[in-house]
């Protein structure tokens, strides 16, 4: 029975991982870019949410999702327009990796200097601890909320890409970013919007993280690897598999923790490694 609970909680934790990885997968799939600063933006959003909570006490943090996401979108748009478009234009796949790595280090240390290294958290009120019983199992509302949001986010993004005009433009730009210009599309703008979306998703993940647990400026890099594992397991551009990957990692971590406490993350990493060895391009494989 306890195993079933662990399994279910693993799935729910996986929802959070998947949400972390969603923005990464988007950028990875569209621009073939690896954003190593993704984790730092997640944490930055958490700090912003905490700031909003101090400005508007008594308001449920869930209402902050919209302003946080909007701010993150703007930040992502500017970041891409001003810095990252240059990195992508070099056509060297490693330049964006190194540049975003640098951004990550800068952001991380900046947050330490400005906010201090002490753990912070967002008070979720009753939501954080409320739960329900089902067939003798105890399940928290919050993890369910996260999983539902994750699935919704993935679904919404998938719909946007497949059925909207903007999604059409994004997919075409991701295929042939030069030719698309002869159809009046501005790739630099498209990339910037995609990055904005990516950080918007990251910020939602950050806010939810802050509700669940305390965080420090280093929480980003701690979660980043997990987020990457989600994306890489799924393979380039496959959101469906990224969602599955996230859930699998969540399960692996909690099951591992049960078997061998203190080293839960180890099992998630080992699972990731195993998948990567068998399919070096992820489950869905790389698009040609």
């Amino acid at each position, binding site marked *: 029975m306890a195993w079933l609970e662990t399994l279910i909680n693993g799935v729910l934790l996986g929802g959070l991982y998947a949400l972390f990885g969603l923005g990464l997968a988007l950028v990875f799939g569209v621009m073939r870019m690896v954003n190593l600063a993704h984790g730092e933006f997640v944490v930055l959003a958490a700090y912003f949410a905490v700031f909003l909570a101090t400005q508007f006490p008594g308001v449920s943090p869930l209402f902050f999702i919209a302003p946080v996401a909007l701010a993150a979108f703007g930040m992502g748009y500017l970041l891409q327009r001003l810095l990252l478009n240059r990195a992508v234009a070099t056509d060297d796949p490693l330049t964006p990796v190194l540049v975003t790595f640098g951004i990550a280090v800068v952001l991380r240390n900046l947050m330490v200097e400005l906010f201090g290294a002490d753990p912070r958290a967002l008070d979720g009120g009753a939501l954080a601890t409320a739960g329900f019983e089902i067939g003798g199992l105890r399940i928290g509302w919050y993890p369910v909320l996260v999983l539902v949001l994750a699935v919704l986010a993935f679904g919404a993004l998938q719909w946007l890409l497949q059925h909207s005009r903007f999604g059409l433009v994004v997919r075409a730009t991701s295929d042939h970013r030069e030719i698309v*210009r002869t159809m009046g599309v501005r790739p630099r703008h498209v990339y910037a919007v995609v990055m904005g979306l990516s950080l918007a998703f990251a910020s939602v993940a950050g806010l939810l993280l802050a509700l669940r647990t305390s965080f420090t400026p280093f929480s980003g890099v701690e979660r980043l690897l997990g987020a990457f594992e989600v994306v890489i397991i799924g393979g380039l551009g496959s959101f469906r598999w990224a969602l599955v990957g996230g859930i699998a990692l969540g399960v692996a971590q909690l099951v591992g923790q049960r078997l061998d406490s203190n080293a839960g993350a180890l099992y998630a990493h080992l699972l990731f490694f195993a998948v990567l060895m068998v399919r070096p391009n992820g489950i869905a494989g790389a698009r040609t």
Partner: protein
Amino acid sequence: MPLLEVRELCSHYGDLQALFDLSLDVAEGEATALIGANGAGKSTLIRAIAGLGSRSRGAIRFDGQAIEAEPAERIARRGIALVPEGRMLFPSLTVEENLRMGALCGRTGHWTLPTVYALFPILQEFRHRPATQLSGGQQQMVSIGRALMANPRLMLCDEISLGLAPVVIEQIYRAFGDIRAQGTALLVVEQDVTRACRIAQRVYCLLKGRVTLAGRASDFSAAQIANAYFGH
């Protein structure tokens, strides 16, 4: 006044110069052919006109307006459409989605999804298939259809017969009649000299980035064309 005027155009790949003071005209509604051996600069010229390649010196005027300094996105909206070498269909998109991409620049006119499908009926059958799953000839039709969806006044066709069977090429070129009938001018890069001279009113022969022959196809003998092509 010609629809497209290219005057003394120079184009570079890094330090390498590919076009040398090249001049060329395309008249409204006419088909003009670009012939020449590989590496003569035909694709370079096409790309430069479309705004994708370097235009280091010289002028390009479209409908009297200077476009040599404009980005490709703006040139597209003026009514110049490109059927690129190698087709460059979007693999993540279906046939119909590829066609819809062509209409994005917002120009309206005769060419819409129904009329493009009427021109190339086989595409309607495959409209929800991923575009790159079609045969070479069908993909070429999608590429042409995509350019048509922009209702261009000038369509640039870069090596559209490459790798296709003669029967398929004939089928595609037969469509050109309808395209010209709607008022679109054509600048066509064509490897096959005979076919080029048959479909086009004017012919330009390029060699090593320069024009070696220009005029009405009927004005030249086969020997003259061969000389211009290979250079003697």
